Each structure stands twice: as C-alpha cells, then as structure tokens.
C-alpha cells in the first residue's frame, strides 16, 4: 500500500508541472486557436533565466519572481514579433513558425548556457512529512500548492476582473469583443504573456527535479499536450485535472506494469493523446468545435 501512495504522491508532484504547462497551452489555444508547440521550450528558457539570476547572487525566490516577470514581457514580445504577423495565415504556416520558435529557443539556450546538465538549486526545503510509512516530500507539497495558487489566481482573474472578462470574450467570440470596444490585439498579447508566465512557473519548479539542460522540457511538453488535449483544449479546469491525472497514471503504470518500466512511461501520454483524439476529441471538459474530416 505504501508503494501505491508513494507513487500517487510522486504523480501529483510531477502532475502539477504538467498541469501548469497545460494551463499555458490551453490559455493560448482558447484565446487564439493557436497550439503553441514551443511552450515547453519557453518554460525551459525561463528556468534558465531563473538559474542565471540566482547565479548572479539573488536569492532563489527573488530570482524566480524576476524570471517570471521577465518571461511575461518576453512572451508579449514573442507574440508581437513572431506570432502576430502570421496569425491569419494558414495552419501550416503557424505550426511551422511555432516549431521555428521551438528550435530557436532550444538553440539559444544551448548557445548561452551550453548542453551540460546544470544543478538547479532546491526551492523548497529538503525533507518530508511522514504519515505512517508514507513520505510526502516538502517539494511535492510545495509544487502542488503553487499549482493551486496559480489556478486560483487565474480563476479570480477570469471571473472577477475586467481584463479577465475581455480575455474570455476574445476566446469565445472575437467579433463581438471588437464591437464592445475590446482591443483584441492587446488582449491577445497580454494573454500570451500570461501563458508564458504560467509555463515559466512550470519550468522553474520542474528544474530542481529534472536537472536543467536545453532538452529538459521536451518530454514534459508531450505530457502537457496530452493533459491539455485530454482535459479539453479550451478548459483550464480540464487542464489542471488532466495534468494531475496523467502524472498519477504515469507513475502507477511505471511502478506496477513491468512491461512499461521507466523507459516506456512516455507511452502513457501518447496513448492518451491518441485515445482522446480518436474517441473524444473535445476532451473531458472541452467545448469547441473540432475540425474533423
């Protein structure tokens, strides 16, 4: 039984990361219809920025916050320079541009910081809470708490603020938003910055566990995409639930199904993506019309 709980807790810990990146993907998708395949790389880049701030002498939490703010600004910049020019182009163009971004970010990170794995400082204190025979690490509790805080803040933003209302309106009905005076382009830009920041949180909190190198977020991206698809590409709540779910399932499968072991764990999200796309393309909680053949 201990093993079970231990795996579930590990699942929640990594699932929180998936959920954060999935949230980022969902926000961008909901407001612009763009599936940002470069999200993982942006998150990785933010983790490096945080690392750099810390290396320059700032305390880890200050470094984190600065990195997240920097990412917000950079995210807006990327949207304006790279994505806005192609936002009305064909799907293929947009996908290719995000892939170009993917490649570019990966390479710039490698260029600046090299390809050797770096040790990211621990954000939460070492040690664990012991309940019976089960150890709940402070890191796991911490990351989960961060997820809940972010999700809560996002909820409050969308439900209770004017900008949140505008963002939702743009996601649901761009034309009507324009007609009530919403500056759609500005809202999209801010939305992108916000999503980038969420991804940054995911990347930063993943770094101590996954070790920092330009390829760190590659597999996380797949899990996050699976979570976003499974939860419903336009449902933030779905993204959170799906992220945690996939984290838990992945660990349970790896721990209990010998065939999968730790090598094939990635098959889990892939099967989920395929299953979702084929049987229930709108995901658990999603709503939008899915382009079908």
């Amino acid at each position: 039984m201990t093993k079970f709980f231990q795996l579930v807790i590990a699942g929640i810990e990594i699932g929180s990361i998936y959920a954060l990146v999935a949230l980022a993907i969902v926000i961008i998708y909901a407001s612009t219809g763009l599936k940002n395949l470069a999200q993982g790389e942006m998150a990785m880049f933010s983790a490096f920025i945080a690392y750099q701030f810390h290396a320059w002498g700032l305390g880890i939490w200050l470094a984190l916050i600065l990195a997240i703010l920097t990412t917000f600004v950079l995210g807006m910049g990327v949207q304006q320079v790279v994505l806005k020019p192609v936002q009305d182009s064909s799907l293929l163009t947009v996908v290719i541009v995000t892939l170009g971004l993917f490649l570019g970010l990966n390479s710039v990170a490698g260029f600046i910081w090299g390809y050797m794995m770096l040790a990211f400082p621990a954000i939460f204190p070492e040690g664990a809470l012991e309940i019976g025979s089960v150890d709940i690490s402070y890191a796991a509790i911490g990351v989960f708490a961060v997820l809940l805080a972010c999700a809560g803040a996002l909820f409050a933003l969308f439900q209770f603020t004017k900008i949140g209302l505008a963002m939702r309106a743009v996601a649901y009905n761009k034309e009507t938003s324009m007609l009530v005076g919403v500056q759609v382009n500005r809202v999209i830009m801010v939305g992108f910055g916000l999503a980038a920041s969420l991804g940054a949180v995911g990347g930063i909190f993943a770094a101590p566990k996954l070790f920092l190198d330009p390829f760190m977020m590659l597999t996380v991206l797949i899990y996050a995409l699976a979570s976003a698809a499974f939860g419903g590409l336009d449902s933030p709540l779905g993204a959170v639930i799906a992220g945690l779910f996939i984290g838990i399932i992945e660990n349970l499968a790896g721990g209990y199904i010998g065939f999968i072991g730790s090598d094939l764990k990635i098959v889990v999200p892939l099967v989920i993506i395929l299953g979702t796309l084929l049987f229930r393309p709108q995901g658990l909680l999603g709503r939008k019309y899915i382009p079908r053949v």
Partner: protein
Amino acid sequence: MANTTITRGTSQYRSIVTVGFALLGLVVILLPFVLSGFRTFQFTMALLWALGVLSLNMLTGWSGQISLGHSALFGLGSYTTCILVGTYDWNPILTIPVAALVTFIFGIMIGIPALRLAGLYLALMTLAIGVAFTPVIRRFKEHTGGSMGISIKKKVFPEEILGLNLDQYLYFLVVIFAVVMFALARNLLKSRVGRAITAMRDNEIPAQTMGIYPARYKTLIFATSSMFAGIAGALYAFVIRFSAPYSFTLTLAIFFLAGLVVGGIGTLAGAVLGGLFIQFVPYYAEEINQGLAGMVFGIIIIIIMVSAPTGVLGLIKKLRARFVTVTDPSVVRH
C-alpha cells in the same frame, strides 16, 4: 530587360529544358570524381534528406496534412536495414523493399486514424509518434541494440565496385534511387490520383461530388509518403551503417519540415534545396557553435514563413518571371 515569353510544349521550351537537364546531369555525374570522399558523402546525405523532405512534401504540400512523425518513419526504414543486415546477414539491397513494405504498412496504420483528424490534431498525433520512436526503440534493446544502437560492419559493402570507391558508388546508388523516386513522385502528382488529391486539398466537398473519395486517397498518400521516407531511411543505413535511437528524434522531423519550407512547399525541386539546406547549414553553423545550427534554422524558418512562404524556389520563380514568362499553349488554335 524585356520579358520574353516561352510556351510549354514548343520545341524552344523543350530544347531549353533538355539542355538544362543535361547540364544538371553532367554536374551530378562528375561530382564524386571532382570532390573529395567526404564532400561526396555530404552530397549523398543531402540527397537522402531531400528524399525525406520529398516524402513530407507529398503529404503536406499535396494533401495539406501536417506530419511531425516522419523522422520515425525514416528511422524505421533505417533500423529495418540495420537489423536485417547486422543481425541476420541479409544482402543490403534486398532490405530496401522490406523497409518500403514495413513503412508502407505503418503508413496505412497511421493514415486510418488520421482520417478522423485534421489540422493541429493530426500534427499532435504525428508528434506523439515522432517522439515515441526513441523510447520504444530503447525499450526493445534485444533487437535494436538499445541506446547503443545497431551497426552494419563495413565489410558488408565491397571496397570497390566497377572501379568506384565506397563513397562514390553509394553516391550513385542514392542518385539512382533519388531520380527514380522523384520521377515517381512527379508522375503520381500528374496522374489521376495526384490531381484528385490536390483537388481535395483545396476544397473537399466539390471533389467529393466529382466522385473522388477522400478517405481512400488520404490513406494512400500517407502510406506512400511513409514508404518514401522508409526507403530514404534504408539508404541512410547504407551510407551511415549505424542506427541509434537519438538519430531519429523530433529535431529531425522539424528539420524535414524546415527543409520543406525553405525549399518551397509543394515543389519537387524545392525538396532538393531543402536537403542541401539540412545537410550544409548545421555543418557550417556547428563550426561556430553547437547551438548555432538550431538557432539559424529556427530564425530562417520564421523569416521565410513570415515573408516568403513559397520558399526559396518561390523566390527563384518570381525572379525568373521578371525576365521570362512561361505559358501554356492556348487552347484555341488559329
């Protein structure tokens, strides 16, 4: 300079095309004798990448379906050859049809669920396949050699054939395959099937009313595209004589897509340009810095998509159009 008009089908047009191809042919044939072994190898690789780009072009340029998994199909072809030759001592040439068949079948398997998806969802599915390739290969290490990869001993290939050394005859082998495959692709495009597919890409419903059934053709294209990638992969195994899980990652899939975009989506000649791009840009960029290659690629992709979505070939065509207009013969005869 005045703009001259050339009409397709006239003897003037035909002679220009013939001379052009003859010159090209001459360059291609003389290349391995003029350049060093290593350079010949590089051009051989460029041709292989071009075939990869071509396979993607069939899917994306013609039928508008996005695939991020072609690296997996390429790798599948390569592994097929390496396993059959390395473990089971097959004659290398015989592995090519096997690789073609294996990837064709995979293509059908992917093509069928792909029917129900479109656009970004298809990209996501193929992304999943592309990324899954590496860990799956590692998992079945008894057959594939796992992370260490699997290699073909050089002895399998004779030192010399008809007076040509290894680099040279492999080059010609790939050239022959490339010419055949490009010709096949061109014929496919011009055939009834090909025209049906491009008709569907632009607008599916009218195509359907004309009696063209999307499902059959889409799956066929997927399978054919996969097969081309698989054959290219098998030839890759001839040249490199080594397959490893990390050779066929998402990065390669992105490179194929980049080559497609840079060369010009939907064009055959663009595939060759794309192949050259994939081979030589990273080579020179890496001399400066390892990360630079990807950065250059990434930036170039973005710039091209934003400013010249028709790729380099599109730009060349536009340039040529300033001086020469190529028209089709008018239907009405005087």
